[in-house]
């Protein structure tokens, strides 16, 4: 028996096949979920993948969060189902209120695609148990609206409760310094990913599903996320 992990496709979703491949690569079963169906098809966990749902035209994630499938995701997440939002998926989770804060245009104003070092700040979420605390991992980052912002109270809460899951490692990264930013996008506190209070809903801008095989990615450091959730689901 293995876990069934749903991967949602919205119009404009791009990294759904990558997310499904990552799920398969840890021997879990990917289940395709369609934006227009208010149906999670009995899955054990859900991935909201990257891309440009509805072109990201109004704001990244703003239109997708109203899709029928998202109503079900929100409901299931409140019951404790593990949910992972990657890039556009993270934006959608923020827009739908499952995660606090928002993602806005990169401070450098350009799309940024690069291999990015991250530090795992919290290895107790259901998506990160396979990592050592403080582990440094190399994962692709690629987005236009990746700068995490939240009001000071929310930031304090996230930091205080250890809900910052991933942080950009910016030591020695001079590439954007001419813009007055010392990170790829100007995210507050260099936040790359966060979790909900129970550590079951996680959103991050970088793409672990693009780092499952050194052939097609900079590393296989992303596999840990999919293995982590599998551990939790199989143990349950």
């Amino acid at each position: 028996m293995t876990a069934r992990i749903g991967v949602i496709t919205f119009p404009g979703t791009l990294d759904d096949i990558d997310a499904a491949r990552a799920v398969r690569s840890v021997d879990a079963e990917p289940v395709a979920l369609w934006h227009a169906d208010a149906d999670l098809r009995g899955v054990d966990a859900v991935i909201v993948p990257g891309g440009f749902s509805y072109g990201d035209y109004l704001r990244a994630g703003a239109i997708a969060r109203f899709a029928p499938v998202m109503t079900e995701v929100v409901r299931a997440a409140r019951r404790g189902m593990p949910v992972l939002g990657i890039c556009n998926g993270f934006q959608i989770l923020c827009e739908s209120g499952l995660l606090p804060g928002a993602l806005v245009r990169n401070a450098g104003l350009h799309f940024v695609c690069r291999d990015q070092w991250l530090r795992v700040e919290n290895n107790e979420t259901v998506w990160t148990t396979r990592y050592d605390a403080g582990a440094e991992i190399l994962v692709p980052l690629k987005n236009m609206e990746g700068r995490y912002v939240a009001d000071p109270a929310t930031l304090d809460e996230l930091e205080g409760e250890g809900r910052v899951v991933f942080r950009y490692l910016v030591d020695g990264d001079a590439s954007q310094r001419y813009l007055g930013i010392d990170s790829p996008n100007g995210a507050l506190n260099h936040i790359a990913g966060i979790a909900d209070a129970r550590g079951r809903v996680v959103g991050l801008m970088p793409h672990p599903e693009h780092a499952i095989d050194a052939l097609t990615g900079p590393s296989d450091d992303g596999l840990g996320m999919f293995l982590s959730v599998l551990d939790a689901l199989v143990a349950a």
Partner: protein
Amino acid sequence: MTSTQPALGGRIDTVEHAAATPDHPQPYRELGLKDDEYARIRDILGRRPTDAELAMYSVMWSEHCSYKSSKAHLRYFGETTTDEMRAKMLAGIGENAGVVDIGDGWAVTFKVESHNHPSYVEPHQGAATGVGGIVRDILAMGARPLAVLDPLRFGPADAPDTKRVLPGVVAGIGGYGNCLGLPNIGGEVVFDPSYAGNPLVNALCVGAMRVEDLHLAHASGVGNKVMLFGARTGLDGIGGVSVLASETFAGDEAGGGRKKLPSVQVGDPFTEKVLIECCLELFRSGLVVGIQDLGGAGLSCATSELASAGEGGMRVELDRVPLRAEGMTPAEILSSESQERMCAVVRPDDVEAFLRVCAKWDVIAVEIGEVTDTGRLQVHWHGETVVDVPPRTVAHEGPVYERPVERPADQDALVADGPERLARPSTPGELRETLLRMVASPNLASRRWVTEQYDRYVRGNTVLAQPADSGMVRIDEETGRGVAVATDCNGRYVKLDPYQGAQLALAEAYRNVAVTGAVPLAVTNCLNFGSPEDPGVMWQFQQAVRGLADGCRELGIPVTGGNVSFYNQTGGTAILPTPVVGVLGVIDDVRRRVPAGIGAEAGETLLLLGD
């Protein structure tokens, strides 16, 4: 909004009306037609053309669509392609894009196109819609687009206008390609003063399909339906044809017709992404008999080419076309270059299923006509006939010119002016300074500022992208079969010797593919030159084509397609002749690729091959 009655107040120029008013003056010169070309149209039709017909002929007989100056030379590619070279070619020059068999039942299609002039006027949208256009070409072959490359040329890096053009072009290519979910796996960035008023924005797309899924653009099967799907048709890129509206309706109460319309188009990558997925599902479900993308010349091109390549004729009810603007005339609808549209030929029994797939993807689709056995392309507008032409005369039998060719008088002086007279660094200090100058020069500096704006990871099949000699994508996850693509051209070499320069471009792209471990299989090209009316430019063009074709024969790989872009010049000065060559290779298993770079491990042995 549905189609509306003409709001300009004037009457529509029907075939009947045209026949009855032979002396009605027509603005054919403003539309770019020469006197003899216009006479030939009258000859073909046995009457004057209607406005709509004139619009169709003028766009389809333009240099861009008809290849009238280059056709005579491009034939040389066919003449030099041997049967052996043709063995793996499933579709070649003349189709939307060339297709080669790469084994294991897979076929790959690739093509490069230019969007130079629009990208100068509006860098972001011009470049974006360039990517959109080439992707639809690949899609129209029945393939899933897999990756893009973007060979670019700009004026000097520190010229003020380059600061306008370059960031816009890069943002446009990235914005469109990233949103489509196509990894960008390579390209070029070259600076030279000759491109200052005329940047080159070329875009290459590669796609793959199972061999049996190859779709060719033709409208066959009398009674089959013609479906238009994708975006609505608006006043985009109508350009010259807007003079028709003002001519025809000048002086009436509507106030003299259209104001001058912007000739740029705005891209909608989201609509294109959905259109891609929708098309692929239509192909998978076997619902498409023939398909054609709508690019330059819009519906004029799609309907006449589909009909011309089919066996019969076609009837189109133009008033069924979903419009975005009010009061559009038939001529305008036929020549609109609104992006993100496709035209398909579908069996009557499949229309319902076709519409269902489109509805699933929220893609607007309407039946606009059907395949007939009349041998004519007939277009109706609210019950009246506005076009009645033999489709071949529009699409395939346009004018062909033998332009004068002459080696420029100053070519000898140019060639004689070699590097001998340049000072050479002779001391370590001078050597150091030369090296530093070269490393810092825009043509050799890092391309990271550009490539970082392109998604190279999406779809998870990118095996090689920058920095690499060629891009490589995996096509088959089971077997690891994949393709490598590189584009190259050094315009300075081509200027010195167009024949050898083109061969050098070919050799470089060929090598860049070979060193990754892939076997080169096919060639595409984008021939960017100055004005064909300049005999010196025509000489460059002729020499480059011959050089490229002869080189291909030598290497044993065919040219499967390409694109010609003339009139690249600022004032009277042409750009460096820039025949960008793209080479595609196949690799059985991408795990055996050879990555670029040396010094990964201590103790490596360095060997220099060749001389």
